[in-house]
């Protein structure tokens, strides 16, 4: 295939050879490295292809062997160009083509970001845009090391960046730090501030599991909002059972309490329904207006118009920007607008409809609670229908997580400073026990 393309570009001739010692001619050609191909014998003569360069060297051989040579056909690009040499615009076009290809290849056509897991392409592209790195910029203006530095400076959790240019693409490879949380935890251990867990509502505690801190309540205790449930200050006792100090911790516990929630939901019986105005044929006003438009930059061409004198109407519009490849947005967009007229009509809900609306909303409410970790153990919500509105009222009995974290008030150590100093050694010695 490549061989044939090359032959076409270089150009070749189809020749016919007649004469007594045609075979001698073939061997002589071979000897001088003149390539011949697609040879066949027709009656007393041979037909074959020969390259233009080969044909120029063939003259002495023709003389020597005394064969007659006839050119049957000229093929290939050189002959093609010669034939159309007077079509100047063709050559201008070809020149412009190559010029365009060359000039267009000096711009960034797409920015490819790889390895970003927690940040979207859009965020990073937006950031790059503020640094004047964007699609359509000149390739020569791209400073890869600058981009790398900028990204590293802006984002702390991106630990490695590589920017490179491949053809007309700017490729940015990123490695994000996935051990952020662990590193933070270590830091915190060294410098812990005591935090308590404080009740955020009145309830009866049904279960408590403490992981860090000291529980101040037991299962079955009824608590009030503001009570400390878990203390973040763990007392350190000496041998005598006296508290000599406190070890600070960030309290962590799962506490569940039983409580009741009141629920109320109302729904008016009357509602307005939108009825689209049907097109009534000739004479009546058309109930819909339509416009499609095409926008290049700030210049906008529209066909049709959505201006109208409808009493009520809904307007829909959509616009789409044209893009090349994945993220090269051109300043060209197209879209459509539609205004649909409608009339309002008052209607009353039927009893069944009301029930389904209210119970659906109640179910949705329950589902939302369950998503938050709230377990519903009983409900007495009922639907009441009045003359103007219907309502769902009642209470829910639930078991839900209790407690919010709050910085603890430091507890004074109930001993004088002098004694503290004396017992300092003791404390150190017994720290194993007190833990």
């Amino acid at each position, binding site marked *: 295939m490549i061989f044939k393309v090359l032959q076409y570009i270089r150009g070749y001739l189809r020749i016919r050879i007649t004469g007594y010692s*045609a*075979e001698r001619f*073939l*061997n002589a*050609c*071979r*000897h001088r*490295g003149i*390539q*011949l*191909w*697609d*040879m*066949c*014998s*027709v009656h007393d003569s*041979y037909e*074959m292809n020969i390259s233009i360069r080969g044909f120029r060297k063939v003259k002495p051989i023709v003389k020597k062997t005394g064969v007659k040579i006839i050119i049957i056909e000229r093929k290939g690009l050189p002959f093609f160009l010669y034939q159309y040499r007077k079509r100047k615009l063709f050559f201008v076009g070809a020149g412009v083509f190559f010029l365009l290809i060359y000039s267009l290849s000096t711009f960034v056509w797409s920015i490819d970001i790889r390895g970003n897991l927690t940040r979207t392409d859009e965020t990073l592209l937006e950031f790059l845009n503020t640094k004047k790195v964007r699609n359509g910029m000149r390739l020569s203006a791209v400073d890869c090391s600058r981009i790398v530095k900028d990204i590293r400076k802006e984002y702390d959790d991106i630990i490695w960046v590589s920017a490179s240019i491949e053809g007309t693409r700017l490729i940015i490879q990123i490695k994000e730090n996935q051990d952020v949380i662990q590193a933070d935890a270590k830091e915190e251990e060294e410098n812990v501030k005591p935090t308590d867990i404080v009740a955020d509502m009145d309830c009866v505690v049904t279960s408590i599991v403490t992981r860090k801190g000291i529980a101040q309540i037991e299962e079955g205790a009824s608590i009030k909002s503001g009570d400390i449930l878990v203390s973040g200050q763990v007392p350190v006792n000496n041998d005598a059972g006296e508290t000599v100090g406190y070890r600070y911790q960030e309290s962590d516990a799962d506490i569940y309490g039983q409580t009741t929630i009141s629920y109320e939901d109302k729904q008016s019986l009357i509602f307005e329904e939108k009825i689209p105005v049907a097109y009534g044929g000739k004479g009546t006003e058309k109930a819909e207006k339509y416009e499609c438009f095409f926008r290049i930059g700030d210049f906008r061409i529209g066909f049709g118009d959505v201006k109208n004198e409808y009493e009520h109407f809904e307007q829909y519009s959509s616009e789409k920007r044209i893009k090349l490849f994945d993220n090269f947005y051109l300043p060209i967009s197209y879209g459509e607008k539609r205004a649909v007229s409608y009339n309002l009509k008052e209607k009353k809900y039927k009893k069944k409809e009301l029930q389904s609306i209210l119970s659906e909303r109640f179910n949705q409410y329950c589902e939302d609670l369950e998503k938050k970790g709230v377990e519903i153990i009983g409900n007495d919500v009922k639907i009441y229908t009045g003359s103007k509105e219907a309502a769902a009222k009642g209470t829910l009995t639930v078991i839900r997580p209790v407690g919010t974290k709050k910085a603890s008030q430091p507890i004074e150590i109930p001993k004088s400073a002098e004694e503290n100093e004396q017992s300092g050694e003791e404390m150190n010695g017994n720290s194993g026990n007190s833990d």
Partner: protein
Amino acid sequence: MKTRIQEHPFKNRIAEASELPKDVVMGQPVVTVLGRTEMNIENYRGIIEYTDVMIRIQTKIGQIRITGKNLRVDYYTNDDMKLTGQIEAIEYQK
């Protein structure tokens, strides 16, 4: 009849001892036939006669005569040549 290999027993022995390919050492022709429509010949000296039913090729060990129908030479270079067409017989001649 004495073949050329027998004429050069020394060269033959060297080729066999050194395990070098004989087409390189002895200059013997390599004929590769694909089915009965294609044929490659390397290490030849030249075409002696060529018509569309018969081709005679000179090689170091003598002539190779190929008969058939619609015989064409696809290419013909210093190293090798390729024949296509309906091949009927391949004969070695002295």
